[in-house]
């Protein structure tokens, strides 16, 4: 890797690592939320951006992870640190099942099925009051036994970096190439010896496991989870962040997550308009610059840079 790239990454890492020192509790909270969305958007991008399976069930998987881990902690006193992994595993199993269910379906039908799945999960969470406290919300214990924003921030930061490294390695591996091939032309990929079913399912399992993990981690931070976490509204945020940042690129979802989360805090000063504004921005980007911010950077700015240097 180029020296400038490494230097840039080190600087950014340094900024993040030292954040708890100079930003207040409120913005640390925003940073933690942003990291949650980074995990969600990046893992969704792996499925939707790289294999072309636009699933609307991502938030539902986060919900599965969060509620499972929370319920295990409350009823069976499973330590959240273990609960998070169990939640991720169960989410992965659901992801496998959903992926298999959708395997014969193309774009639109697949999306509709994942949508139906997402709503079923939300309805179950809402209705099984005994277990989940429904819309009242479920109080779940802290991840590490004590409450400390800086500690949680570092935990989320480390997990996000781990996720991103995994995703980066996948994207730049043979698996990543087959992901893109399946997205471009499934039939041709199949005819070239690629086990398309396996590729699609692997993508589903990995992304749903990550969503489940992220959801569980986030739940043990918020200490109160509601069916909202698996709602289509949450799904929309993840989708908007990925699209605005740049679907199908590695950095895109990261940028999208931070950009939108921070933006929503500024908008919140004036009122709860942030979803509307994101929607409009996402609409404009999807219409005029479908490759998102990363696309704009690649096409316009990179060329200017080359001309200058």
């Amino acid at each position: 890797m180029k020296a400038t790239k490494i230097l840039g990454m080190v600087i950014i890492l340094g900024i993040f690592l030292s954040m708890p020192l100079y930003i207040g509790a409120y913005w640390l909270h925003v940073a933690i939320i942003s990291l949650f969305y980074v995990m969600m958007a990046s893992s969704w991008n792996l499925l939707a951006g790289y294999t072309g399976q636009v699933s609307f069930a991502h938030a539902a998987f986060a919900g599965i992870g969060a509620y499972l881990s929370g319920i295990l902690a409350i009823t069976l006193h499973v330590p959240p640190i273990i609960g998070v992994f169990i939640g991720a595993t169960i989410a992965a199993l659901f992801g496998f099942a959903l992926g298999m269910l959708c395997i014969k379906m193309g774009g639109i039908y697949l999306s509709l099925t994942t949508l139906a799945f997402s709503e079923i999960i939300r309805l179950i969470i809402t209705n099984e009051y005994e277990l989940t406290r429904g819309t009242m919300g479920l109080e779940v214990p802290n991840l590490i036994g004590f409450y400390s924003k800086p500690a949680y921030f570092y935990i989320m930061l480390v997990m996000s970096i781990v996720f991103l490294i995994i995703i980066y390695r996948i994207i730049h591996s043979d698996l990543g190439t087959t992901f893109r091939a399946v997205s471009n032309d499934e039939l041709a990929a199949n005819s070239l010896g690629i086990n398309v079913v396996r590729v699609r399912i692997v993508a589903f399992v990995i992304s749903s496991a990550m969503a489940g993990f992220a959801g569980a981690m986030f739940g043990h931070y918020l200490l109160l989870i509601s069916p909202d976490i698996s709602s289509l509204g949450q799904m929309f945020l993840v989708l908007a962040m990925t699209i605005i940042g740049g679907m199908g690129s590695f950095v895109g979802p990261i940028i999208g997550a931070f950009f939108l989360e921070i933006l929503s805090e500024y908008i919140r000063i004036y009122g709860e308009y942030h979803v509307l504004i994101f929607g409009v921005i996402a609409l404009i980007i999807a219409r005029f610059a479908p490759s998102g911010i990363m696309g704009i950077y690649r096409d316009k700015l990179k060329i200017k840079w080359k001309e200058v240097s």
Partner: protein
Amino acid sequence: MILKATGISKSFGGLHALSEVDFHINEEEILGLIGPNGAGKTTLFNVITGIYNPEKGKIEFNGEDISKYKPFKVCHKGIARTFQVTRTFLDMSCLDNVLVGVIGNNPKLSPAEKKAEAIKHLKFVGLNNFVDTEAKNLTLVDKKRLELARALSTYPKLLLLDEVLAGLNTAEMREACDLINIIRDKFGITIFWVEHVMRAIMEVSWRIIVLDHGEKIAEGLPKEVAGNPKVIEAYLGEPNA
């Protein structure tokens, strides 16, 4: 015989795309498939490569019954194809396009070896200057070259070409035909191709089979087939007086 097809039948709804088709392909020959539009030629390709399963009949490749195999398994066994309307991976570079074929069939090579393989095949078809070009930016001819490189990267024993000459000018056709012969001569790959450009397919093929309305109506040397009244009738619609 590298491939033997017996009694292949395939219908879609009420349409009998293929009816009791029997034929065989000899090792290292160039077999041509002709027939008027809608005769079932591409359907036959799709059945052989596992995109469709035959309703009746059997396909044996090197003695193995591949009738029910999925496309990727058929490819692993040694059959590769190109498509009538090119199906290159448009948003991927030429290198990545061919890399997919390498990954699909030689996954254990190191990344450097895989890349070398891909570049080797791109060079063979004349695309060495387009290694990093995205497939969507290629001309039609180059897309066809890319599909060929991609198919060859799977080290097939049998190569199916579906109207590979369509849309090419005379010089490009000549080049393509030369390439087909080189592929057979140099690599020992058996060729089974569909073509509408009569001169080319008659000149290059060793044998020809003719399909019409899903049935095989003729088989033999190009000269014999060309003079066959049934074949002429199939194309012109009426027997010559």
